[in-house]
């Protein structure tokens, strides 16, 4: 193969010229970094230099972007993708098609307007920097590239006759209608945005055209004053409280719905020959595929309230990570269990039925929370004795922490389904992990000076993918049971 290196001169391509437009758009946020420098110039008393400095910075950035575009080229040959990049230090990267686990396509708002898309090659190598991107090429070119790579992969694995049937196999597994999104958004009630809005109101208090803080009952009284209702409101102070509460609820629901709409607009999960493919997003549209054979575990998440209505979310843990932030792939954001079971069937993971008996972890796992509560209480008491009134906060916080620890400990359960283990935990956000025995790479049996006298141990499973901080574990079960389960799981892994 190395005998003919010069004969095959690859057909070099550049990124789409619209990428430059994208670079200009990105200049906006990036020039914020330059603000401190500008301020420094300004404070030095040289205001005349501010505008030239800004212009020079913009020009420099544009030239850099253009040079980068000029020096970036890639070629798609029969078996591999070659990428050359770098202005000063050149980098030459070859990615064989065989090593590309999947091709992701992502389009931001501007990119969609320009008809271009970012192509990411998932190679399964650890770390974000080891994967390559083409940012950005035309959308049709991106899709053609993905088809080429997928076709190559299916050719390499399956016989030719089989490919035709498998192409026809693409079918819709799950989609979200606007109505479903709205319902999901209502359950997505979140006061997280509230903190942002509240902080913003504090920060921009003086800049806002209106002087109004939604969370301050006094402001609601001011409004009433304008309408001559002040006497009535002062007499009925609860109205002001209700106003604050209603706006709180409104912000919570609105942010839930908006977040859900932006993230999951036109959500579609399709079954492809060897992967589950998910497209979603209102402004930023992503197109991600999870290879079925690389799915390691399934995680069912719900909330204590939505659970009463039968709504669940399904995540799949895979070797590849879902974008930069999420470790697990969200394949069903909001659905009832029958829809989720269909998806689970595709990845060959079974959900325990209602008759399945569950075993519970020992109540000792509440100890951590109880110790935390004790610390909060003693800290509060010490602060109070020193005359610091904020110490009450510690005392008040201790009680719910202790109750949550006691109550939450009752929800740690597990069961062995023969070829997989199901682990359940949490009351506020119930979470069920379905872990096939075959995914388990190593098993830890941990004991410590508290668990050992009680004859208990904690099983921790080493599973590919997922977060390093949240390993799958079954806490505080009798040692003999733990050893039995460990032997069974390892035996199943050895059979494969």
């Amino acid at each position, binding site marked *: 193969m190395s005998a003919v290196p010069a004969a095959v001169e690859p057909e070099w391509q550049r990124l789409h010229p619209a990428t430059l437009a994208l670079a200009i758009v990105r200049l906006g946020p990036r020039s914020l970094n330059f603000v401190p420098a500008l301020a420094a110039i300004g404070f030095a008393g040289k205001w005349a230099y501010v505008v030239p400095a800004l212009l020079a910075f913009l020009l420099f950035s544009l030239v850099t972007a253009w040079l980068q575009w000029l020096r970036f080229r890639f070629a798609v040959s029969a078996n591999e993708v070659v990428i050359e990049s770098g202005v000063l230090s050149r980098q030459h990267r070859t990615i064989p098609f065989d090593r590309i686990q999947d091709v992701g396509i992502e389009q931001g708002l501007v990119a969609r307007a320009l008809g271009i898309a970012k192509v990411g090659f998932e190679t399964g190598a650890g770390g974000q920097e080891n994967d390559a991107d083409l940012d950005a090429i035309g959308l049709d070119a991106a899709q053609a590239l993905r088809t080429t790579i997928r076709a190559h992969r299916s050719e390499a694995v399956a016989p030719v006759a089989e490919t035709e049937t498998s192409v026809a196999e693409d079918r819709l597994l799950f989609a979200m209608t606007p109505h479903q999104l709205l319902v999901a958004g209502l359950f997505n009630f979140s006061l997280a945005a509230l903190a942002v809005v509240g902080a913003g109101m504090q920060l921009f208090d003086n800049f806002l055209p209106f002087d109004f803080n939604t969370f301050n009952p006094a402001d609601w009284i001011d409004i009433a004053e304008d309408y001559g209702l002040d006497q009535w409101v002062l007499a009925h102070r609860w109205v002001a409280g209700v106003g604050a509460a209603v706006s709180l609820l409104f912000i919570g629901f609105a942010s839930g719905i908006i977040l859900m709409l932006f993230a999951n607009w036109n959500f579609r999960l399709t079954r492809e020959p060897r992967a589950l493919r998910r497209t979603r997003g209102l402004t930023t549209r992503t197109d991600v595929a999870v290879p079925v054979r690389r799915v390691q575990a399934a995680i069912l998440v719900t909330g204590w309230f939505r659970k009463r209505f039968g709504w669940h979310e399904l995540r799949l843990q895979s070797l590849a990570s879902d974008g930069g932030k999420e470790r697990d792939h969200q394949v069903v954001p909001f659905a009832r269990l029958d829809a989720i079971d269909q998806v689970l069937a595709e990845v060959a993971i079974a959900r325990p039925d209602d008759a399945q008996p569950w075993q519970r972890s020992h109540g000792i796992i509440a100890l951590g929370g109880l110790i935390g509560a004790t610390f909060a209480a003693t800290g509060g008491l010490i602060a109070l004795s020193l005359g610091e009134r904020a110490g009450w906060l510690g005392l008040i916080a201790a009680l719910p922490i202790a109750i949550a620890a006691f109550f939450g400990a009752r929800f740690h359960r597990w069961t062995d389904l023969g070829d997989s283990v199901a682990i359940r935990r949490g009351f506020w956000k119930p979470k069920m992990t379905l872990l096939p025995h075959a995914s388990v790479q190593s098993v830890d049996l941990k004991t410590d000076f508290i668990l050992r006298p009680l004859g208990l141990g904690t099983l921790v499973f080493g599973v590919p993918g997922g977060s390093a901080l949240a390993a799958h574990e079954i806490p505080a079960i009798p040692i003999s049971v733990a050893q*039995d389960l460990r032997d069974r799981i390892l035996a199943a892994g050895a059979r494969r």
Partner: protein
Amino acid sequence: MTDTAPAPTDPLAHDAINAADGLDPVNPAYTHVLRAATALNMVPFGIAASVFDYMLIRHIEGPYGLITALAWALAIFAIVSFPARRMQRWGYKIGEGQLRVARGWLFRTDTIVPFVRVQHIDVGQGPIERWFGLSHLIVHTSGTHNSMVTLPGLHADLAAAMRETIRRHIQTDFA
């Protein structure tokens, strides 16, 4: 193995934990490695405490010498008495297609890695280990948790032999 009563092991007995779990002890020379490593940590700590004592406590007319004495007492205690304990808490068992590594007592972790799950194997030797003719074996798995399992305190020949054993298993699995 499953009917072992875990509770009544005497924590002060020499190889009580390993014997109860059916594990082999690591090479006793590992004590010296641990002791040298502890000394490398504790001596700078003692020096730092002395300097702190000399620079600060003397000037504020505190109990000069107390911190120095305490720090060095702690350092000597840690260097003399702990390493032998820590060595005894390590245990391993190789066989039945799996590697078992146990460590610690206050927080004890007993890890099993089936040979078929091993991605690759390292045998490493640090300068202190080389001095005592020891090596450590590192087994890499593709799990995010336990992506590497380290077994220290092996005689260099034994570590090499274990590596070969595991390697043979990996090869037969793929053949």
